[in-house]
Structure formats: C-alpha cells, structure tokens
C-alpha cells in the first residue's frame, strides 16, 4: 500500500522532482551515539548507527531464522565446537580483506571487554583453521550461540584498524558494512556514506545522516517538515498525525521489548505469592496499552515477546478481577491492603504507567506512592534490593529466550545482573540451565515453555505489555524494514523515483 502510494505520488510530482535527486537519507533518533566501537557500549542509539557500519558472522531474517552474514556457512563439529567458513573477498572500509584472524581478534577482544563480555561469556576459545575458516569453542554446550553472535556487539572488527586508532577507535570506526563513517558533529549528527566495495553490493542511497533529536514531538515535526526521512520511536500521540499525512507512513511492529512491573520478592509483603497474584488481578493492562501507549502494544503474558525464540503462546494472561484480588489479599492476611512505593525512572511512558497502576491498585486498598528515581540511583537501588516495586523493560536483543529469562529469573543473577526481583526458584534455575546447555532446539523450546508457565503463576514480575515499536517514514523511502531488536538496518533502502 505504502509503496503503491509512493509510486503514484512520485508520478504526479515527477516533473519538478526529477531535477534534484535526493542523495541523503536523514534518520532522526532520540539520542546521539556514545561511541561507534561496538565493544565499548551496548546502548541502542550507538547500535543503531553501528549496525550500518559493521556486519556480523550471522544475521537473523524477519522470522528470526539464522541466515549467513560474513560467514557463508557453519556447522557443529561437536556439541561445543562450531565451525564458520567466511565469505571470501569481503573488504573492510580501510581496504583490508576480512580474514579469520579478524574474527579471532574480535571475539577475544569482546571477551576482554567488561562492557560486552557477558554476550560471549560462553565462549572458551577461538581457533583459526585457515585464512577463511574459524572454530568457536564454548565452555559448555551453548544452545543460543548463533543468536548471541547476531548481536551488534559481536560485529566483526578489523584488527589493524583497531590497533592503529587506539583510544580514538570509537570515533573512527572501520567495518565491513554497507555504509562507512564520514563525520561526527558531536551531539548533532553522524554522517555516513555508501561503501563502494560492500560485499552485498553498493547501496542506492549515497549518504546517510543520523540526527539527534531528543524530544519525540520534535521528531514527528521534523518528519512533517521533511527535515528527516525516517523518525524512530514517535510518541504514541503523534502516530495518527503521521498516519494521516499523505506523504508520510507509519510502520508499527512487534519488538523484543516487554515492559514489566517487578516486585522485590524478598521483601514483605511481596515475598507472598498471593500478594503478587492479587496485584496481578487488580491490573488492567488493556487500559494501560490504550491510555498510555494509544494501542502501541499488546497485553502480555510472558517476560519475552512473541517474536523471541522459546516464547510460549499458550499462557493465559491475568484478567482484571477486583473480587479475586481482594480475596487473595485477604488470604495473605492483608484484607485492608497496605502502603507501598513503586520506583520508576523519569521515562514519561513509565511514569504514566505508574500513575495508571496507582489508580488501579487503589481499588483494592493498596496505597502505592510513585517515586521517580534518577536512572543511576534506580539501577543502584534496585540492584541492592532497596525497592518495593519497580517498572522496567527488557529487550531480548538476541531474539533467544535465554537472553531474557536467564538474566531476569535465575537465582545466580540477583540484583544488577538482571534479576532485580530477587526471585529464587530451584526448579526455574534447573530448567534454565538445562535449556542453555542443550543444543536441541525443540527441547529448548519446551523447557522455556515450562519456565514461562511457572513464572506466570508465581509472578515475580508482572509482564504488562509487549511493546510495539513505531517508525515514521516519508513515503518516498522504499525498502525499509524493522529489526525487532530496534537496530534497523538501512541496507537496501532507496528513494522512490
């Protein structure tokens, strides 16, 4: 539909438009990148730029299947060893050719970097077989290995370029991706240009600019005024405006992101599962999705989104039922409710969710005050267990259940490592470990399915909704597709006409 419209439009305006050929794609996002060294950061704005500059060994397609990237093929030699055969003739932006030694260098550097080591912590060693073949050996059998290698942090770097640049590498990145780095006006924009020797062919659009536009409203405005061609993460309220403008289109899709309400399960009264269930019955997630997100999400029943490998679609979600909730509270010995606090950071969406929750919990006598906590203090406090309840989101970046469930619910990851509800359940631990070390996809799926059933019953965290991500786009931009993890690849995008 959008494409059809674009063709019609460009046919109408063809006469004038033909004179000036648009050669730059401008993308607006909510923050500037921090560094373009994929091993030095793991934040979304940086990844969104880096993903245009780099390539990974393997990638995922739209249906989350693993497809070849820099590796043209791979196979398991035994349950701990995976052998990758690299594409030949792949060029880095500095003219060097991709070799097995770069892969070894990259993965070893990753393991040594505290920022991203956790993504490849399963890897024991990387052996070079020949110039284009490399073996990756894990400590234990590790099911999600390929998914982890699709992470933007696992982008393959050029050993020579990294060593030559030293500390400044983050400002002069060199990759094998479709676009190469040109210039960075700090805080304002990053300019990239198409890489002539990209192994997938040179891109149709010569230049790409990433602009930093912190306010959502301004991104929508910039789309309308034509200052940007693609605007990431529009405010829910602006969606209709974009949808209704004839030259703009709204792309909205499921993502890997789930917003959840966490309980400190080691603190009374949340150590009582009945209290957690009572709260779950008091919540109306549809209201939240409707009022806060304007429909940009789906009430959830699992800590991982439906697109993630291992998602269990057969779990019922809690339906609001105040009688049931009061009953459970009474059984827990708190018939009149109690006073508590909820922590959130200053993310406006989360603050709004907190306000709706506040009003809903008031109905069953729970007097919940909202504390908006600075992000640093929030991470600090929740990793120490100073909180009662909190709102947070989780993006299962790798698209594999392990990345979400293990960190959030294993008793080994209490606190800062992800399990901020301090949940401990021996059975869950055992299932998660078993699923992680299995390399049989069907078995893993079943194990994760079981974990999600237990979690939905015990609610250490209440999954509020699966978040949709939206993007506003000029209709003359063709071939754009979303990545559920949020770092969309601009490869293959072109202008109409």
């Amino acid at each position: 539909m959008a494409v059809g419209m674009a063709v019609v439009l460009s046919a109408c305006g063809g006469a004038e438009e033909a004179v000036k050929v648009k050669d730059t794609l401008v993308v607006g996002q909510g923050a500037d990148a921090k560094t373009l060294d994929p091993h030095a950061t793991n934040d979304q704005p940086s990844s969104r730029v880096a993903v245009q500059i780099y390539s990974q060994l393997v990638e995922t397609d739209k249906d989350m299947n693993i497809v070849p990237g820099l590796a043209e093929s791979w196979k398991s030699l035994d349950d701990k060893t995976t052998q990758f055969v690299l594409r030949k003739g792949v060029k880095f932006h500095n003219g060097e050719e991709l070799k097995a030694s770069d892969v070894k260098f990259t993965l070893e550097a990753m393991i040594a970097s505290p920022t991203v080591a956790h993504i490849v912590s399963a890897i024991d060693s990387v052996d070079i077989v020949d110039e284009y073949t490399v073996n990756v050996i894990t400590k234990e059998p590790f099911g999600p290995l390929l998914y982890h290698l699709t992470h933007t942090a696992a982008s393959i770097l050029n050993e020579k370029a990294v060593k030559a640049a030293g500390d400044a590498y983050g400002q002069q990145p060199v990759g094998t991706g479709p676009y190469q780095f040109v210039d960075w006006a700090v805080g304002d924009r990053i300019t990239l240009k198409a890489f002539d020797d990209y192994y997938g062919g040179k891109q149709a659009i010569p230049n790409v600019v990433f602009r930093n536009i912190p306010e959502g409203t301004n991104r929508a405005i910039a789309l309308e005024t034509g200052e940007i061609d693609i605007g990431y993460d529009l405010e829910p309220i602006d969606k209709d405006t974009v949808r209704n403008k004839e030259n703009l289109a709204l792309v909205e899709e499921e993502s890997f992101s789930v917003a959840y309400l966490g309980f400190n399960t080691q603190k009374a009264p949340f150590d009582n599962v009945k209290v957690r269930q009572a709260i779950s019955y008091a919540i109306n997630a549809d209201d939240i999705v409707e009022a806060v997100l304007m429909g940009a999400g789906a009430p959830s029943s699992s800590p991982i989104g439906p697109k993630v490998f291992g998602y269990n679609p057969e779990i019922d979600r809690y339906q609001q039922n105040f009688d049931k909730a009061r009953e459970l509270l009474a059984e827990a010995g708190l018939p009149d409710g109690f006073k508590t606090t909820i922590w959130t950071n200053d993310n406006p969406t989360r603050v709004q969710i907190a306000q709706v929750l506040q009003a809903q919990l008031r109905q069953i006598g729970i007097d919940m005050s909202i504390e908006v906590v600075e992000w640093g203090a929030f991470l600090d406090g929740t990793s120490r267990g100073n909180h009662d309840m909190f709102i947070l989101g989780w993006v299962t970046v790798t698209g594999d259940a392990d990345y979400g469930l293990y960190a959030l619910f294993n008793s080994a990851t209490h606190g800062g490592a992800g399990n901020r509800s301090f949940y401990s359940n021996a059975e869950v631990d055992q299932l998660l470990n078993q699923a992680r070390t299995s390399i049989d996809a069907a078995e893993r799926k079943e194990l994760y399915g079981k974990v999600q059933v237990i979690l939905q019953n015990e609610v250490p965290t209440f999954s509020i909704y699966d978040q949709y991500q939206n993007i506003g786009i000029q209709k003359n931009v063709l071939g754009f597709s979303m990545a559920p993890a949020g770092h969309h690849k601009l490869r293959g995008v072109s202008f109409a006409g």
Partner: protein
Amino acid sequence: MSQEMTLDPIQGQLEKEPAPEIVAKAAPKKRSQWLEVWSRLKRDKMAMLGLVIITIVVLAAIFADFIADYETVVIAQNLSDRLQGPSAQYWLGTDEFGRDIFARIIHGTRVSLMVGVLSVAIAIVLGGGLGAVAGYYGGKLDNVIMRVMDIFLAVPSILLAIAIVSALGANLMNLMFAIAISSVPTYARVVRASVLTIRDQEFIEAARAIGASDFRIIFRHIIPNCLSPVIVQGALGVAGAILSTAGLSFIGLGIQPPEPEWGAMLAGGRQYLRHAWHVTTFPGLTIMITILALNLLGDGLRDALDPRLKH
C-alpha cells in the same frame, strides 16, 4: 534566564537590589515607614493588579477543597474521558488521564505556592544569615563565606538539583531544598551589601555602646533594616522558583505524581501540544499570569521602597 537553571535561577534580578546608599538613607524601622510604603504602593496600578491576582491565587489555594475534591476529582483517573477539550463539564478540559484540568490547576496553587514561598524562605534564612554574618564581622570570615558563595554560584544549579534529588529522592521537600540552595548565594550577596552600609551607622554604634550583644545587634537592628531589598528579591524569587520547578519537571525531576503541580502539568502535557492544546495552554497561562503578578508586585515594591523614586 531564570527557567534555564544553569546558574542561579534568580541571578537575572541580582543587580536590581536597591543601591546600598538607598538602604543607608532608610531610617531605623518605624511603623510609619511601612504605612508610607503601602500608600505609595497603592498608587501604583500595575503593582495593585499584581497584588489582586496574587490574592486570588492565595484564595484559590485556601479554598481549593471547596472548589474540587482532591480524592474524587483531582487525582481520580477517568480514562474514557482523556484529552477532552473544554466543555461545560470540564471547564478547561481533561488531561491524559481524564482528570479535570481546572480542578488540578486550583489544587496546584497549593503546591506551586508552597514550593515558591518555602524555597525562597529557606534561601532567605540560609543566605540572609550567611550574608549578615559576613557583612557584620567582615575580614577573613567575610572572605571565606563569600568565596564559598562564589563556589556555589559557579556550580550549575541543575547539577545541585539532580544531586539532591538522586541522593534524597524526588519529593516536594527535596525539590524545594534543591531550588533554595541554588539561590542562597544571591540572598547572601544582597543582605551582605545592605549590612555593609548599615553596620557603621550611628544607631548601631549606639547599640554597641550600651552593651548590646552581636547577636542582638544583628537580629534587632541590622536585619530589620535590610528587609526591603530582601522583600523585593523574595517576591521575584518566588516567581523564579515556580519557573524553576517547571524547568525541573521538563527534564523529569518534578514532584511525585499524582500531585498536581503547574510545572509538571505543563511539562507532562508537551507531547500533546498539537493534539490537545488545552493540556499545556491552561497550566502555561496560569504560570504566566502568576509570575507576571509576582513580578509586577515585586517591581512595585521596589519602587515603593525606594525613597528616591518618591513622586
């Protein structure tokens, strides 16, 4: 600019303190002096307009509960009625949770006035005290105090605000404290300047001669005689504090929801600016009119307190 908060929020008004010699000319406190000030103020139409508006705001704060119930109207959500325009039922429309904006503005007077007045009061007590001591004793002590004030002036108030809020939590009290701290140096300077001109006057020497203690001299004789610049600065400071709160709300450091506070209402509604204009417009206008009134009154007071501007 006051609301940008990068430095002292009311620094822009710093230089508007009456020049020291004005204070020097002021006689020791007398009832008739204040009556005279009032009669001068009464003649200033603009200042009276400001006073009337502020009186209305104060009355709204006092009688807020009679106008709208807090539990059932001000904070109760009505999600089916969200973002409605002004109507007979909702005079100024509803916000993103379907709450009556008029009721929230009325109750917001309490919060905003409290933040404004208390933060200025804290700043006056701390800053005024330090300034008085510095000015009265002079010498090394003066130097140390004023250098410390310089340091505080150089630390961006937004940093202080974020630091206080992240260390102590985001609530009304801490917010007021954060705003107060950053204007302490201003009051210290204002009071010190006044004290410097007063401390060597004959009536102070007289008090000293009859054996009054330093404490007594400072509190009975000096402070009452530097009140005028502090009052003027204070009226403007309340305005600055309300704007600072709005600014802090904008960067997410506002007060705890669901408390209605004008700045938070304005900042929170900014994403709806284009779709539901009333959500930001009415709190914005309320802030603007209140600040305007405070400024009018402050300017009027300054003119009235300045004997050289007598007609």
